[in-house]
């Protein structure tokens, strides 16, 4: 399983190195989302306290964690779509199965490749959010760990649900409908954990971190068990 996973992940990352879809399309899209949030909410709008202390804060700074994760989710839809678009041509998924690869390995490999790409994306978007929205960073360790476990959950749930729509003409419209409600709990948990990491106290964030970790474990397990039966037909 693991060697197959490595093969698939290496293949997907190699395709990305050549095609540069993430860096030339998904990443700029994510940054654009961060900027248009600024247009929608207005950088001048202030709120007193907002639940944390008495000082006046910009609304944008206050809600930076949620906007960041929304931008990540939207970019995820593109990254996941692309991960299956490269398999759509010439019955590639069937070819992978017929090559004797373990379906659990295919699942882990594809999820790992998406995970690596999303983490790079989050690093850039995270810096972007800190700069654009002017948020402080009280606890970088919590932020980093939150990013990792939340993204494992996003990548595995994403690959699993995208496989349901693999090879169909309606893939681009179906995957967001299937995926966003499933990822709603991740958006909640990651936003609250990130809020704690930015504004403190970190102790508010750790329970959400554990919740995100549990979600990730559930979906890694579900994918390993079920991916084979999803690929079988097509």
């Amino acid at each position, binding site marked *: 399983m693991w060697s197959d996973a490595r093969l698939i992940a290496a293949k997907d990352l190699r395709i990305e190195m050549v095609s540069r879809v993430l860096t030339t399309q998904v990443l700029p899209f994510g940054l654009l989302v961060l900027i248009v949030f600024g247009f929608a909410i207005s950088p001048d709008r202030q709120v007193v306290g907002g639940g944390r202390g008495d000082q006046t804060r910009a609304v944008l700074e206050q809600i930076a964690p949620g906007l960041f994760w929304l931008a990540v989710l939207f970019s995820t839809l593109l990254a996941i779509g692309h991960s299956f678009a490269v398999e759509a041509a010439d019955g590639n998924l069937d070819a992978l199965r017929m090559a004797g690869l373990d379906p659990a390995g295919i699942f882990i490999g594809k999820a790992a490749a998406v995970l690596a790409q999303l983490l790079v994306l989050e690093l850039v978007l995270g810096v972007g959010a800190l700069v654009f929205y002017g948020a402080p960073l009280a606890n970088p360790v919590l932020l980093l760990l939150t990013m990792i476990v939340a993204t494992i959950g996003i990548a595995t749930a994403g690959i699993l649900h995208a496989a*349901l729509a693999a090879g169909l003409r309606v893939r681009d419209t179906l995957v967001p*409908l299937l995926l966003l*409600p*499933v990822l709603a709990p991740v958006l909640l948990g990651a936003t609250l954990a990130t809020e704690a990491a930015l504004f403190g106290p970190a102790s508010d964030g750790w329970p959400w971190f554990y919740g995100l970790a549990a979600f990730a474990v559930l979906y890694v397990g579900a994918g390993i068990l*079920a991916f084979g039966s*999803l690929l*079988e*037909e097509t």
Partner: protein
Amino acid sequence: MTSSGVGLKFIATPLHTGSTGSRALGVLTLLAVGALLLFALVLSPPEISQGDAVRLFYVHVPSAIVSLYVAFGITLLGSVIYLRKQSVFWDLMAGAAAEVGVVFLGFTLLSGMLWGKPTWGTYWQWDPRQTSTAVSFVLYLGYLAVRKLDMDPTARSRRAAFLGIVSFFNLFIVRFSVQWWRGLHQGTTLNPLDMQMANIMLFTFFLGLLTMTLIFFWLLLHRFRVAWLEHQLAEISLEAAIAERRDEDDPGSSPALAAKGIS
């Protein structure tokens, strides 16, 4: 159909959607609706803090319970059995239950908002139950969308069954996380399940639960039978098409087709 598996064939036997059993169920359902209207609107008193708005509660909470637990529970069960036995019966049953369940859940959302306006002063309160119900509604819309996909029926059924199982667990993940989230931000709001109820109100509530359950099963039975007849029709048309091709090939007796085992 050999695939119905369990001893539930009588559900699928008639050549139309009505049968003696379903008509009896329909009459029983109508009686229950009449009794519920009498108790909910006339005999039961207004509640102390909610006034007459409490009467919505007799249909709102039952429809939530029926859709989330009964309907989506049947979808879960049907999906598991389908994956184990490839039973068309249970595949169609899972789909029919989800479809009726989504209607009930939509009604839950609507009646909840109508209850919220006089009670909370607003249609949407971001109450944990309200919010997670809205997300669950979209979850199962996604399931129904997968059932409608234009693709090979067997592959589609397998994908739908997988999603029918995953969605049931997602229901709880969503509910749990939203409750946790809202729990941090607000104290307890007035909740339909928290109130003190007089005996007659409690009775009316259980009557509502019974009535909604009867309505659900009546609708489920008919929805399932429509799906089952559609399935029969598709099989018959397929067999007719195959027979027609056979007749075409017979006189010529093409050796190429014979070699492929088609004629």
